[in-house]
């Protein structure tokens, strides 16, 4: 079941005008920001399907930039986000894509600065609810409703067990977990949804484990 909580249906409290095109877009932007982990110097946003056709009218552009600025769906600064991004010296580029996607409300966000880049693909499935379906080329299914941990690692035995054991040691319960890789023995990604927020100490401990390249988190 895609929708688990009554507050997915009655809610969110948000700035209008569209839950899928404004609130959902803000949430996709905010997850991207959270995964990037810092203020980016530039953001390239590509819109597909209904997003591409109507993003200006729905304020999707304003909302997604608001999310990248780390604003929540009900933050009234969203309507001024393009100016705020300019003040913060974040270069924004937007494009409308013709390509057909599985879901009509799809956005691809690339964030970057001199230290690195991140690419995520998010879909807005209605009522403000979103899923992140791709990160840096890895397919994943992340609802954005729970705190989550993303661990880039080498595709090697023991890597997954190491992370799971460490979470157990910190008494963190795993609600949902997925593992993906591009090919055997190459870089792989663990997506772990958990029940409570993950502290810096846990993140640091995970990065010290063998075969782990990088760990990032998303707060609820």
């Amino acid at each position, binding site marked *: *079941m*895609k*929708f*688990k*909580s*009554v*507050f*997915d*249906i*009655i*809610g*969110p*409290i*948000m*700035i*209008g*005008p*569209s*839950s*899928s*095109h*404004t*609130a959902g877009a803000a949430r996709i932007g905010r997850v991207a920001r959270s995964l990037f982990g810092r203020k980016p110097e530039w953001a390239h946003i590509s819109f597909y*399907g*209904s997003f591409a*056709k*109507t*993003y*200006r*009218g*729905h*304020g999707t552009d304003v909302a997604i930039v608001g999310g990248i600025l780390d604003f929540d769906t*009900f933050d*009234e600064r969203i*309507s001024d986000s393009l100016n705020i991004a300019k003040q913060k010296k974040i270069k924004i580029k937007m494009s409308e894509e013709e390509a057909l996607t599985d*879901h*009509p*409300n799809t956005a691809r966000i690339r964030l970057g600065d001199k230290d690195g880049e991140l690419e995520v693909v998010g879909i*807005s*499935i*209605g*009522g*403000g609810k979103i899923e992140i379906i791709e990160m840096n080329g890895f397919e994943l299914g992340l609802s954005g409703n729970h705190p989550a941990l993303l661990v880039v690692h080498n595709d090697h035995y023991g890597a997954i067990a190491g992370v799971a054991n460490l979470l157990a040691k910190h008494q963190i319960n795993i609600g949902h977990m997925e593992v993906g890789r591009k090919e055997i023995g190459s870089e792989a990604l663990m997506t772990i949804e958990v*029940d409570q927020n993950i502290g810096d100490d846990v993140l640091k401990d995970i990065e010290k484990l063998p075969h782990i390249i990088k760990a990032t988190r998303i707060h609820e």
Partner: protein
Amino acid sequence: MFRNVSELVELSISKNVPISEVMIEQEMEVTGRSKETVMELMEKNLDVMEKAVERGIREGVKSHSGLTGGDAVLLQKYIESGKSLAGTTILDAVSKAVATNEVNAAMGTICATPTAGSAGVVPGTLFALRDKLNPTREQMVRYLFTSGAFGFVVANNASISGAAGGCQAEVGSATGMAAAAIVELAGGTPEQSAEAMAIALKNMLGLVCDPVAGLVEVPCVKRNAIGASIAITAADMSLAGITSRIPCDEVIDAMYKIGQTMPTALKETAQGGLAATPTGRELEAKIYGVPLKKK
């Protein structure tokens, strides 16, 4: 956990509790939150809805595009004149639904029920019935849980996204949700809630999502208005003892399948329907300051 309307009604009957209580208990179970917290969270949503309704019927907000605004005030004045044909409750619900969507179109703060484009129906009917039925604050919060329970079923078995299923999935769902909640608020049975939802949603089937200039304004605001009137009528029909020949779950399934076969041009892409009328295109060109394209 209930997966469809028949399971929801069954749970409500076997536990001998209203549908709102089934939804509250499930929410507690899924999230591990206390009843107090769950009720408080919903009351916050209620507060936001109330503020949006009040703002819309008093201030007469205008949207940035100028396409919508001020109609909720016109309706309130008309009701006061005493000339109303449909009756105070229905027209009051209509004006309060319009109020919510006008605030939404003006980038004001609202609560999505189930979406922002369809945010008017549930609060519009609720705040009109407040004057008629004098519910307690708790009963008003429960109204939202009952609406939410039916919306939950639609979201998981069909869709609440206009881009995926057309307006029937948005204002249609909201209308069915409100109809079911009105029945519970008015003292009807869980079965009657399901019948009201079925009757309401049947009359929204096939409704396309064709917003002019891609804005959540025309025809969204007026569709919420008529949705509110259908919700009250469907609830009254069900409370009178009328049932739907097609069971509620099958109506929801029909809505889903209609949405799947609906052309993309009519699913929130502003390519067909009212968006593609000569006046729709003219407004679009004017709003975005671009020359009118022949399509």
